[in-house]
């Protein structure tokens, strides 16, 4: 034990390791970014086409007025919860193992929120009139309607975006200062500007810790409220199978579920690409795997409660939706979704040995996210497709334009993340050091 290097000896190595992605770039990275940019361009082209010709480029039609854009909106806002949940909740509970995971997850939050906002715009029939949604004084003397859950939504997301930007920024300040001192070239001035004069004095540390301690519980509350409000978008509506009290908590848990899955993927990929095996260890995957098992069980419980209530209640409007899911038009995606988000995670994650296997956990994370995307679609489409007047029942599948936009936007998220990784240390350097110090002290 004594030949183990002390924290102080390890410091330069930590700095080197964790700043490496910011300093060295391989040709694979450029290829990757180039490929993503092409996809983003395709998505942008598709969106431009949709704006020029009309929202009819989607496959939407009455009575299915909402489709893949809203599903993606819900999905991405779910992903955005990963960061806040992991870093926020784990910070609150002082879970030591959180340290290498937080930054990576918080970055996901910001990227996902940007993408989420985009989907609102894709969805609008007249996106060039988006400013009608903004509360500001105008000559028309008109305000937006705050009774609409969509306005709550807009407000909540705006708040969440602001708060999570601050939340990711605060712990970044010491790292920016580090980067400022280590990195040369044009980026140096940017880091200097971002580091807002951090020089590591006791007073500054105290202020920062205080700030983090204050904002952490706040952001957890915001996070819960945001996804509850997204749930309210549906729960408040009169649509059969939407009008349910479980939607708010269910959406929160669902968000964490897919968010954890996403973190799992991110963690694995970054560790692999940037050789962070010293920092991201199997232990982290195992802990996350346990958490994922918890969310799987929680989500399955809620889903079961909801479906059982519908099934037992036999209200025709609701039963019609359930039938279409269980053995109707949507049975294939439904059962696929059930396997993806409940069955497969449950069957794999219960095995302690499995939880030690990062590749397996990454694959489960991927499966969960595919499943959760389908789940979002199945929450939105089948109830809309079965209005109370059965004369109007219908089906829906996203059009090509929609799919291009969806893929383009996924590419945009990956691109933003890839770019961010080149700019921001993916593991909080000072927290990592602090963790090491704590570990040694104990």
């Amino acid at each position, binding site marked *: 034990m004594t030949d183990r290097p002390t924290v102080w000896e390890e410091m330069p190595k930590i700095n080197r390791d964790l700043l490496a992605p910011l300093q060295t770039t391989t040709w694979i990275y450029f290829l990757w970014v180039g490929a993503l940019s092409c996809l983003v361009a395709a998505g942008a082209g598709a969106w431009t086409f949709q704006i020029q010709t009309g929202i009819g480029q989607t496959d939407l039609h009455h009575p299915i007025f909402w489709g893949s854009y809203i599903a993606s909106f819900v999905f991405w806002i779910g992903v955005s919860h990963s960061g806040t949940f992991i870093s926020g909740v784990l910070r609150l509970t002082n879970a030591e193992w959180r340290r290498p995971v937080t930054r990576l997850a918080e970055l996901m939050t910001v990227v996902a929120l940007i993408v989420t906002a985009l989907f609102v715009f894709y969805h609008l*029939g007249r996106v060039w009139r988006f400013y009608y949604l903004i509360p500001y004084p105008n000559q028309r003397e008109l305000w937006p309607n705050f009774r609409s859950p969509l*306005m709550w939504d807009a407000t909540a997301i705006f708040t969440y975006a602001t708060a999570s930007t601050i939340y990711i920024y605060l712990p970044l300040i010491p790292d920016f200062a580090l980067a400022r001192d280590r990195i040369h070239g044009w980026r140096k001035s940017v880091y200097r500007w971002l580091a807002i004069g951090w020089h590591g004095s006791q007073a500054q540390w105290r202020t920062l810790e205080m700030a983090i301690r204050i904002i952490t519980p706040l952001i957890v509350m915001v996070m819960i409220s945001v996804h509850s409000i997204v749930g309210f978008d549906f729960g408040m509506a009169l649509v059969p199978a939407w009008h349910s009290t479980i939607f708010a908590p269910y959406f929160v848990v669902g968000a964490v579920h897919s968010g954890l899955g996403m973190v799992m993927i991110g963690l694995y990929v970054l560790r692999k690409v940037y050789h962070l095996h010293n920092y991201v260890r199997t232990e982290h995957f195992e802990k996350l795997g346990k958490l994922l098992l918890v969310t799987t069980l929680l989500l399955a419980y809620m889903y079961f409660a909801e479906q059982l209530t519908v099934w037992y209640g036999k209200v025709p409007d609701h039963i019609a939706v359930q039938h279409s899911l269980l053995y109707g038009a949507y049975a294939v995606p439904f059962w696929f979704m059930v396997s993806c988000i409940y069955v497969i995670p449950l069957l794999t994650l219960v095995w302690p040995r499995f939880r030690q296997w990062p590749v397996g956990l990454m694959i489960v994370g991927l499966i969960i996210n595919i499943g959760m995307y389908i789940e979002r679609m199945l929450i939105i489409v089948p109830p809309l497709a079965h209005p109370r007047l059965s004369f109007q029942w219908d089906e829906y599948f996203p059009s090509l334009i929609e799919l291009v936009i969806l893929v383009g936007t996924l590419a945009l998220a990956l691109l933003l993340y890839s770019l961010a990784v080149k700019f921001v240390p993916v593991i909080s350097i000072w927290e990592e050091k602090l963790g090491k110090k704590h570990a040694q002290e104990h």
Partner: protein
Amino acid sequence: MSQDPQATDEYSKQAASPYKWEMVVDLDRCSGCEACVVACHAENNIRISGEEEAAEGRAINWIRIERYWEGDYPDVKVKFLPVMCQHCDDAPCEPVCPVYASYHTPEGLNAQVYNRCIGVRYCGNNCPYVARQFNWFDPHWDEPLAEQLNPDVSVRSGGVMEKCTFCVQRIRSGKEAAHKEGRRVRDGEITPACVQSCPTSALIFGDRNDPDSRVSHLKKSRRGFHLMESLGTHPAVTYLRRLSE
């Protein structure tokens, strides 16, 4: 016919409107002939969707005749149900609109202000009657079909929700005529296009605040019901049940 002088006084006050518009659909008279559908298209500049859009389920009808089959051959029965915007007093579509494009007028109409609409389509989801129709594209009329367009009704652009207005342009001109003569609108003076055309007189329109109007009488009929009464939307359209054996 109400000649009550107080009624005129009331009208001069702006706070509350003296009118509450109501439609009655007598299912025992409705033959499903769809004269109302074309009348509505002609009056309200409803777009021609064309084959492709119609196949997508995007044909726009402010009033549609829903047809329900019952039983199997040879004991088959058909029931027709004309469905238009029910102009609910507690309309589920109104509170969810983030920009107030959908709102309730003092006369009990469920209004849609087209140029305010940004197309979030929440109202469409939330309407249990699927009465709201969306313009997925800009409308198009092959020349010179557009010569027929009614100048009293806007042509809705793409990206905008629309629906039955109870022919508000006719209500407006009826009220203006009455206002210039300093009187209330008389029963039967205002007829929406569908009501006007209906051969069997299955559709009746009028002021529910006027106790002597035809709709006020018919509303009280024992055959009367509202579509999805249990939802508590309080529609301004009353259906009269079709009698059968």
